């Protein structure tokens, strides 16, 4: 569960990025966060990942009260979530297999667990045949699926995708979104930040729109028209 209670965030530069956000996202939901660039989407994500701390208000993520979270607990908060980046953030000098295994090694998984789990997750995203390839040999869509596999491999209860289709051809974007939907169907909470309105519309999920640091619409609270 993700909960924002009257959250304000003002950067040291004086930039008021968030002005009183109140949102609750339950376990197992699939939510789109939309808004123009500079609306506060990135700050919203950074607060969830605890890359930034709220100036006032409370953020709760998977039972972690972030205002009270100690620095050394941050890694454990991050292990509860899988993050998919717009620029994929793969390590080019590692194979697809090692890129995915990397996330498991970081949390101290054993050799056996890695050998069992990585091929399974690569199978989920349809890349079982590419495990020995290096990221630069793959298409953008495939690279993002590697990113998704890496986010999934530690079996997090929450997946955060930051503009996951931003660098991918539109036809392949749907593929990624289908995968995210499938993941959600298996019980994982999925949070997708995007400015691609077409994509959002076609999926008919809960949409939270942020504008100038405030929530201007939330389709959960406004009943579906038509």
């Amino acid at each position, binding site marked *: 569960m993700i909960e924002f209670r009257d959250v304000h965030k003002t950067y040291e530069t004086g930039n008021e990025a968030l002005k009183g956000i109140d949102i609750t996202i339950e376990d197992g939901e699939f939510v789109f966060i939309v808004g123009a660039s500079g609306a506060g989407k990135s700050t919203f994500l950074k607060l969830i990942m605890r890359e930034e*701390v709220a100036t006032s208000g409370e953020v709760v993520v998977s039972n972690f009260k972030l205002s009270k979270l100690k620095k050394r607990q*941050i*890694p454990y908060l991050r292990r509860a979530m899988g993050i998919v980046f717009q620029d994929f953030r793969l390590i080019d000098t590692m194979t697809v297999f090692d890129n995915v295994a*990397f*996330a498991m090694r970081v949390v101290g998984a054993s050799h056996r667990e890695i050998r069992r789990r990585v091929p399974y997750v690569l199978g989920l995203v349809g890349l079982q045949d590419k495990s020995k390839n290096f990221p630069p040999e793959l298409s953008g869509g495939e690279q993002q699926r590697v990113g998704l596999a890496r986010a999934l491999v530690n079996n997090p209860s929450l997946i955060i995708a930051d503009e996951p289709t931003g660098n991918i051809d539109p036809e392949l974007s749907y593929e990624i979104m289908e995968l995210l939907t499938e993941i959600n169907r298996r019980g994982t909470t999925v949070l997708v930040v995007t400015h691609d309105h077409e994509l959002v519309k076609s999926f008919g999920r809960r949409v939270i729109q942020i504008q100038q640091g405030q929530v201007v619409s939330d389709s959960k609270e406004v009943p579906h028209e038509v």
Partner: protein
Amino acid sequence: MRFNTFRFLVKEGVRSLRQNLFMSAASILVLVSCLLITGCAYLVYENVEHAFDWAYQQNVVVAYAKDDVTGERATAMKTELEALDNVAQVEYISKEALLERYKDEFGELLEDLEADNPLQDAFVISFEDLGLFDKTVSSVKTVEGVDKVDYDQALSQTLVKVRRVVLTVGVWVIALLLIVSLFIIANTIKLTVYSRRREISIMRSVGATPWFVRFPFMVEGIILGSAAGVVSYGLLFGIYEVIRQNFTFSSSLELIPFVAVWWQLLLGFLVGGMITGVLGSTVSIGRYLKENTD
């Protein structure tokens, strides 16, 4: 830590080294020069100490006994002299023995002197601490039966001064070079940290502890440091032995052989290299993590 994780982290450190091969080689080179100079300073110091020991043995005081001192009294004098503070060794040479020695040197010139030996019984005295030279000489003079005392005061004082200067300069040179080496390592690691910032950000986003992020860089530092240690040890060994075998300064005083200090130097180079390696990398990765804290 699981062995599996440990192996992975060590591999990561090695991988990073290889990816920054040029920088790694450059920093090993600079570190080698620092260690070489440090090693030279140490060898100079050891040689000065060695020369000093030699000079100690040469720089003896000779006390002559008065003519009326009998053999019995001479033995007692030796014991009394040995009991004095700061006296290391006393060698008694009777005037007959002394004459024999001179005869060996000058031969027939001294024939027929046995009947009327003009020499005096002598005590060759060496001191423990040349710094207390004057005081000890005056106490030697107070021993009953001592006629006069021969010594070279200027030499002993010069030796004490030289030793003090060498020690001070040596310590400063070594300290300075250690600091320089530390900066060099820190800089190299800073560059590799920079070139791996993407990996670091990935590590942190998947929940790596700061310690986990640091470890490969420490491995890198240790490898850099110990590699530099081994290389400079080999170089120093070669250079020093060539110098030692081809240059002789004096027939009685030689440079100490490298093997006499081989393990002190090897240990010093390895430990020194590794410590600078670990410290250097810890400093730079620590600073990077701090600047980019959440």
